[in-house]
């Protein structure tokens, strides 16, 4: 089966955006910025969602468009879905502010 496509927006990115639905085990080949990555999806990833291009440790920065889009809230495996369950936004977080104040 042909590899499915995911787009990288910038060479520094550690995630790519899927442009096809992925099932666990599907081979993915990236297009767009920088080197071409070949990897396997470790779980189902819907159209337009993000796949981790490498293992991302908890607390590490997640990069798309060459810029920080958040931090890993937990360790993320290569080929895993990156979304609100494991990516923490860091800006305008009133809830974090409140925790810090206490």
């Amino acid at each position, binding site marked *: 089966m042909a590899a499915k496509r995911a*787009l990288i*927006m910038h060479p520094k990115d550690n995630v790519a*955006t899927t*442009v096809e639905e992925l099932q666990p085990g599907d081979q993915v080949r990236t297009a767009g910025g920088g080197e071409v990555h070949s990897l396997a999806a470790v779980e189902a990833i*819907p*159209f*337009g*969602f*993000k796949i981790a291009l490498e293992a991302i440790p908890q607390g590490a920065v997640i990069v*798309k*468009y060459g*810029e*920080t*889009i*958040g931090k890993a809230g937990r360790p993320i495996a290569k080929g895993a879905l*990156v*979304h*609100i369950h494991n*990516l*923490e*936004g*860091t*800006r*305008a*977080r*009133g*809830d*974090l*502010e*409140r925790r810090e104040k206490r």
Partner: protein
Amino acid sequence: MSFLGYPRPDGTVGTRNYVLVIPQGLIAKSIGDFVAGVRTIQTVDHGSGRTANDRERIARVLIGLGRNPNVASVIVHAASPGVGYPELKAERLADEIAASGKKVEVIDPVKDGGVYGAIAKGMQLARMMVYEASKLRRVEVEDKHLCLGVKCGYSDTTSGIAGNPAIGYLFDKVVGAGGIAFFGETTEIIGAEHSLAKRAANPQVAKAILDAVAYREAAAKSTGLDIRTINPIPANIKGGLSSLEEKSLGAIHKAGTSPIQGVLQYGERPKGKGLYFVDCWMGSYSIFAGYAAAGANLVMFQLGGGGLTGRELMEGSPSIVAPFLWCTANPKTYQMAKDNIDFYSGSVIMDGEDPQEAGERLYRTVIDIASGTLSRSETLLHTDPIDLCLEEPRF
């Protein structure tokens, strides 16, 4: 490239040719219901209990809509004759609109025989104005007379990858030709403000961008809430966006790459040409009226829509006087709402279309609609009421 438009006395060029009746209310609505070619604003916010700053914002929108290049002439009715706030007095609104060289008439229930009398007089005036406006002919003008406004909404990952970049290409082209373009939504540049500040035309503009974000982010933090329970909105998250920063970094692609000439308040007119950031809220029902008040003669909504499950019929002209285009790069959204979409760029993602070619297609679509082809939403009589982007508490 050129388009066919209506030259106005102040040097701007209209893409449409309306008679506008302001402010909102029974008198304006009645005239609009009876007379063809009349536009009016529908909002419940008439200034009562508002601070002077917010009343001035309302006045700015009303005056700005009156001065919009798509408006041939204007009727202002005295909404609270003798007892209204000074900022919103009919004479003041009329004088500032008339300064642009347009014909403006004031009707006043006190002087014109009550509300019924004012409606009757307004209808007579509006019919004559519409008739006179119809004698105007479109002429060929340069594309530097385009003044565009954009919002991206129900964004998903297709917005940042293909939809917004197509708009960005258009903006660069129109700004490069000497035109004007507006983008805004301050919450949705949080996380991307540093790269916008680098594009500021001078250090004052860079500071104004960073200040606008700092103010809005502090306000967001003061809620004590996780911003992700508010924005990105659920439809963004369902469409694959995971944080406000990710949304912002995709959103700024709609602004192209031109230098940013200034930061404008909601409804504020720019002093020069080029690309401007408007410090305002993202609401679909307020932002377009603000762009039109700032002089936009065509506005567009770049729709993601990946998180939407049904979108067959969409909002009708919240810009009031500016043709309103729906654009999307999401193939699912396009299939779902094909008859509402003016421009589709999902071909960049699905078929490998060159993003620049998609931008050129959008430019040609804009030239076409600016020249008189109706946008899809203009084929509907329905217009949604709008909500003005006001900032201060009510008392």
